[in-house]
């Protein structure tokens, strides 16, 4: 919320009059236009993850099978039994719907507010990279966010085009530090092998629970981190409770060891070969339990197109120099060299014996190279 406010205020200080003119086209923002737009932006920043279930992404695929945390977030904001009436009464009529639209699908005039909440330089990433870095005790993930925000501005093509978030020339290197922070936190922390194996245990633990415990939004929201942790601790102690095996591993820090990993630059062909490795290694070592972690989606580091890029998923991010628009990808030396996305995958084996681990790892490598 604080980051969203800072970014909104910065953009308003640069192009407030243009923003006001466009936002005023929305009926709910006809009066007190900028104050209301700012409020909606702040609320979207505060509430955008309110639909996350316990342990966020680790349990999402299990607890929210037919949905995702974004859908539940929108539900919590717009439905009467949750926040709708409170938001509309506390702030202004229509506030709940506008807030939800910034998370889901904003009207085109408010796209720039959505970009503040989740875009290329958004409040969420700016906030969580710094916070996670601090709480993990690492030096990755840090960048000068104050300076980065100071360098943000608004760009409009002609007098009628949509408003776009842009960056001034002076902010190139701050933007690069944000991208580097994202790259390093992802590769060194979020996709670290230990973090991934414990995520797998959490997923298996939730899979083993009775699904009727979280088959409604209310039940998903009720199963918060505290309640889930209590269930996990209980299950770790009692082998008759569902999920005992996985809970015990988490509580006793008794994890599988990684015997094979995909390189972050590997593409889908490597994924295919890794699938073959897993199928074979399971048969060759029947006494060892194996787990695999091959993420379906690649993790984006940035989406900025550089000269010569033919990747359709990349976009132009406006860079403003002396009042003219350029593309950030053309000016940044660093973006050209960094991958736009990556995928790391692992095969884990349940063994603490170093010789067996080495033997399995060597065999995995041989199968991979021969497939």
């Amino acid at each position, binding site marked *: 919320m604080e980051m969203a406010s800072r970014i909104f205020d910065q953009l308003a200080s640069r192009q407030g009059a243009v923003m006001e003119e466009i936002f005023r086209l929305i009926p709910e923002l006809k009066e007190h236009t900028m104050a209301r737009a700012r409020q909606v932006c702040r609320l979207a920043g505060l509430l955008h993850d309110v639909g996350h279930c316990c342990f966020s992404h680790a349990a999402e695929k299990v607890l929210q099978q037919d949905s995702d945390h974004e859908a539940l977030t929108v539900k919590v904001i717009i439905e009467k039994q949750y926040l709708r009436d409170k938001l509309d009464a506390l702030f202004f009529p229509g506030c709940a719907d506008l807030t939800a639209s910034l998370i889901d699908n904003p009207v085109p005039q408010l796209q720039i507010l959505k970009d503040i909440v989740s875009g290329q330089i958004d409040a969420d990433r700016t906030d969580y990279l710094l916070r996670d870095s601090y709480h993990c005790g690492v030096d990755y993930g840090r960048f000068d966010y104050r300076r980065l925000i100071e360098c943000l501005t608004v760009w409009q093509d002609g007098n009628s085009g949509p408003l776009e978030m842009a960056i001034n020339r002076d902010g190139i290197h701050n933007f690069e530090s944000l991208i580097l922070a994202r790259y390093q936190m992802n590769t060194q922390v979020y996709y670290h092998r230990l973090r991934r194996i414990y995520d797998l245990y959490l997923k298996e633990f939730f899979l083993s629970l009775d699904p009727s415990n979280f088959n409604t939004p209310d039940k998903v929201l009720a199963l918060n981190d505290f309640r889930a942790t209590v269930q996990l601790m209980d299950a770790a102690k009692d082998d008759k409770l569902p999920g005992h095996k996985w809970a015990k591993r988490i509580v006793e820090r008794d994890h599988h060891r990684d015997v094979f990993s995909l390189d972050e630059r590997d593409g889908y062909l490597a994924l295919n070969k890794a699938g073959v490795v897993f199928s074979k290694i399971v048969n060759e070592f029947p006494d060892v339990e194996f787990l695999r972690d091959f993420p*379906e989606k690649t993790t984006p580091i940035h989406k900025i197109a550089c000269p010569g890029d033919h990747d359709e998923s990349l976009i132009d991010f406006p860079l403003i120099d002396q009042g003219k628009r350029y593309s950030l990808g053309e000016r940044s030396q660093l973006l050209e060299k960094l991958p736009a996305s990556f995928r790391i995958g692992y095969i884990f084996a349940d063994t603490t014996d170093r010789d067996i681990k080495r033997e399995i790892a060597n065999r995995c490598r041989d199968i991979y190279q021969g497939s």
Partner: protein
Amino acid sequence: MSLVFEHRWEHALVASVIDAAKKECPNCYLGRTAIQKLVYFLHVLEVPMSFKFRIHHFGPFCDELADTLDWLQADGVIEDQSSQSRYSNFASSENWTELEEGHLDQLSAHQETIESVVNALGSMDSNTLELIATLDYSFRWVHACGGNGPWKQSAIEKFKAIKGNKFKDEEITEWYDRLVNAQLIKK
């Protein structure tokens, strides 16, 4: 060889589109851009899917769908038959039948829509698909801005703001009218 990875409804849907498009036009190139646009129109026609489209260089685009193509290739559901590294030409592969069998009910519920989109658009080149998908997207953009229409002029202005001078005025107008006749968009 059988499926190794986990699969969802969206995977079966995309593989089914590829299979149907290749049957409709075996000699047509079926690249990433074309698949993006075919699935985009299924989204417009309210076939359920978690894919969310945003406007990119070549029209509406979904990152998750791009990852899905890699995932399907990695599991032998589809294959790239192109000999050129820069362009793809997808077709269904040996594991498609296994994936299809797991989603038969859902697929048959939407088979008619899938076939109608593939019949209408499956043999078009990626440039034309880019044009019509972006026109459709532009209409939806100006429509979402509010007002009562007519929409044609503002939708074409929006289209040009996205595409610049890549397409001729006559072809833009012609395709806009065709989309109106197909009742996908309004005048």
